């Protein structure tokens, strides 16, 4: 063991940290996908120009070169998770967070920082309900109730500069395992931490490592599953974009623990920015000898490659993902053999999710004991959730496992938009399950969710209000799984298609009363007769819909009504004779002449002719026309 090289890391850390400490202030502009879409790169350019004009602009290169130099740095960061309020700009060390920033705000932001120190109130966060103004990021209710561990660096560090990561203690965990721990001890540490796979299944991570470690084989692989296919989940994207080195470090530690010298990161093709940041990160890590041959002089070699997915939801399943890396159709195969025994090219392979790898370095540095104390019984640690849909604050959150759904939706999420009533939450993507009002106090952890027929999945939380039709939502999910079924198992391939047909009939107003039992039978058959997770869980939306919203389904197929008023084929319009003044406006606005009547007397709608376009509703000055 070459001590000098292992010490090199601490020297870099010290040297770079001293450089960063000489920054007077730092302006961080979010460069996650969401903020970039809202123009954050223009905001970055404007802020930089403004700081340059003030003669204060410095970069880390300058700070390291010129002793005693100081100034203001302007940098890009990864995703803060509060995408809806973007572009976000954070000022350090004060911790002030500006929201919805435009390039034209740059001068004011810089003036506030350099001159009077008072933040620009106009672009601070204003609470949508109370109107209260919050200056500091951690005081905003959205952040205040969170505990960010995996997302710790997201929004804080520049993901394209390894020096920031190292100065913050990055790669310290890798150094520790290489110099102080045996592979067996690393596996033990992860087992003791109680960490469970963050990709959905919740299998104990340490056990998976240990099972791969004990395989006798000269060649093994580590694979990072970044095929985040669940619609409504984007934690993997945010982590890969916002803190790529954390993932690389976690994978290298896993490589050492199981005895692998090669790894693959499988990323969805829909995430170009994540791919680019990973490429940069791998190059930088190799440059400093933190990846590649003889890492930190320890004799341990570890090489990483990126594989871009080509668009197939089923590839999130580990055996399908392996087939895809091998260049085949991404179809699952029966287990056993498990990937730990025969995985990529038949070699023992460890596959973990992005978020799982993001937790590794902290566990090694702070210890298994620290980690196991966070969260709930048998559900250690924190979990990220992507909270979206009809909720006031959408974004990416991280809370200890066991936090209640109510806290996530109402305290962090800020409740339902537009003052509507909460109806349900879809958790864990299309094959997850649905939680209703009665579950609001249910702890969000692997086991509690399983007990009510749902699952954490990747951690998508799509909030739905009273205006959502659950039958239409079930149809929407079935359409997704039917499209994504790989076609290998007949129950899944044919069953999802037939279930979709039955649900389609219901929303088209052609449902049959016998469908209620038929779809239940079919759903159970698909669940029991499919090989992989996709098929086994594809009927979940149907089963939970039938369990919690059966009335709504019966209303569609028996009474031919959509209680939420969403399904247009089941909509009908009625004129309230009490309110109608016979002004003829509706009759004139109707494109198919379905409305008739005598002037100054209540009009009526011919339901046969009506095409349910809703034009009459808008034209009526007396609000006399209602859906129903």
């Amino acid at each position: 063991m070459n001590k000098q090289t292992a010490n090199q890391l601490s020297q870099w850390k010290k040297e770079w940290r001293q450089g960063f400490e000489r920054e007077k202030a730092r302006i961080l502009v979010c460069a996650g996908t969401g903020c970039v879409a809202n123009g954050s790169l223009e905001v970055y350019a404007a802020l930089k120009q403004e700081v340059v004009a003030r003669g204060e602009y410095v970069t880390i290169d300058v700070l390291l070169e010129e002793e005693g130099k100081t100034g203001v740095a302007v940098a890009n960061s990864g995703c803060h998770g509060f995408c809806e309020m973007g572009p976000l700009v954070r000022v350090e060390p004060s911790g002030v967070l500006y929201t919805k920033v435009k390039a034209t705000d740059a001068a004011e932001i810089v003036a506030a920082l350099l001159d009077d120190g008072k933040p620009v109130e106009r672009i601070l966060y204003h609470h949508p309900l109370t109107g209260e103004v919050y200056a500091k990021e951690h005081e905003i209710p959205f952040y205040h109730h969170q505990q960010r561990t995996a997302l710790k660096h997201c929004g804080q560090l520049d993901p394209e500069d390894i020096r920031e990561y190292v100065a913050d203690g990055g790669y310290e965990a890798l150094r520790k395992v290489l110099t102080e721990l045996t592979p067996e001890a690393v596996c033990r540490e992860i087992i003791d931490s109680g960490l469970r796979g963050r990709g959905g299944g919740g299998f104990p991570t340490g056990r998976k490592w240990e099972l791969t470690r004990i395989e006798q084989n000269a060649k093994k692989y580590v694979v990072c599953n970044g095929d985040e296919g669940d619609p409504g989940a984007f934690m993997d994207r945010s982590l890969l974009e916002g803190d790529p080195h954390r993932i690389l470090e976690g994978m290298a530690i896993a490589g050492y623990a199981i005895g692998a010298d090669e790894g693959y990161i499988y990323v969805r093709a829909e995430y170009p920015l994540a791919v680019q940041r990973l490429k940069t990160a791998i190059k930088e890590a190799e440059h400093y000898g933190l990846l590649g041959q003889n890492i930190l002089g320890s004799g341990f070699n570890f090489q990483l490659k990126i594989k871009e997915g080509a668009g197939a939801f089923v590839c999130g399943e580990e055996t399908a993902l392996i087939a895809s890396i091998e260049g085949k159709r991404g179809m699952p195969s029966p287990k056993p053999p498990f990937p730990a025994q025969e995985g990529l090219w038949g070699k023992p392979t460890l596959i973990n999710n992005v978020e799982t790898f993001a937790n590794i370095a902290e566990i090694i540095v702070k210890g298994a004991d620290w980690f196991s104390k966070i969260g709930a019984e048998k559900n250690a640690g924190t979990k990220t959730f992507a909270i979206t849909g009809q909720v006031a604050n959408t974004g990416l959150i991280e809370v200890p496992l066991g936090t209640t759904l109510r806290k996530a939706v109402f305290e962090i999420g800020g409740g339902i938009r537009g003052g509507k009533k909460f109806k349900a939450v879809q958790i864990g993507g299309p094959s997850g399950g649905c939680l209703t009002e009665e579950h609001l106090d249910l702890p969000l952890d692997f086991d509690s969710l399983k007990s009510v027929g749902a699952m954490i999945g990747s951690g998508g939380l799509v909030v739905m209000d009273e205006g959502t039709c659950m039958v239409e939502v079930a149809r929407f999910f079935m359409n997704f799984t039917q499209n994504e079924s790989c076609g290998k198992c007949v129950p899944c391939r044919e069953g999802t298609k037939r279930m979709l047909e039955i649900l389609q009939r219901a929303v088209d107003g052609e449902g049959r009363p016998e469908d209620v039992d038929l779809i239940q039978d079919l759903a159970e058959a698909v669940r029991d007769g499919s090989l992989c997770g996709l098929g086994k869980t594809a009927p979940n939306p149907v089963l939970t819909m039938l369990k919690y919203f059966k009335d709504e389904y019966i209303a569609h197929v028996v009474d031919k009504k959509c209680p939420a008023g969403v399904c247009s084929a089941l909509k009908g319009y009625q004129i309230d004779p009490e309110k109608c003044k016979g002004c003829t406006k509706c009759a004139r606005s109707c494109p198919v002449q379905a409305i008739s009547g005598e002037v100054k007397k209540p009009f009526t709608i011919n339901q046969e002719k009506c095409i349910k376009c809703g034009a009459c509703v808008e034209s009526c000055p007396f609000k006399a026309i209602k859906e129903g």
Partner: protein
Amino acid sequence: MKQGVNEGLKGDSSTNYQRKFEKVNEIINRLGRSRSALIPILQEVQAEYRYLPEEILTYVATALGLSPASVFGVATFYAQFSLEAKGKYVIKICDGTACHVRGSNPVLEAIKKRVNLTGKKHTTDDLRYTVETVSCLGACGLAPVVMINDKIYGQMTPEAINIILDELEKEDAEDE
């Protein structure tokens, strides 16, 4: 398959033939001829031609020592690959859960109406626009989201997307 390699290129002179496969050869040589290189090769071919021409699939199969069926199997399995020519602007409307519940459908309808696409057709006859839905772009905080080529537009409405398409057309007109 309707045409084999030679049949498909009958009309081409031998220089055209060479030029057509020059780029493919370059891609194959760079990425290697192993089975695991197949998907990256197809991705680069698609980036080059905006779709996967049939004769090139057979060519890739021969170069990698695979049967054309297994290459077609892969090309048709993944959503990213298209066997039909795509438009200059590929408009992807996200229909993930978050976008769906916040109204992605009216946006899709507005786009289709605007570029005159009906039924199952995805690409306009003048090869200007391809309109498709995707399951999730991972920008759920901005729902509903539309991606045009590589650029993401958030919080879309039927009105907003029309303004964006107006601008695209204006830029196009200036270029031409």
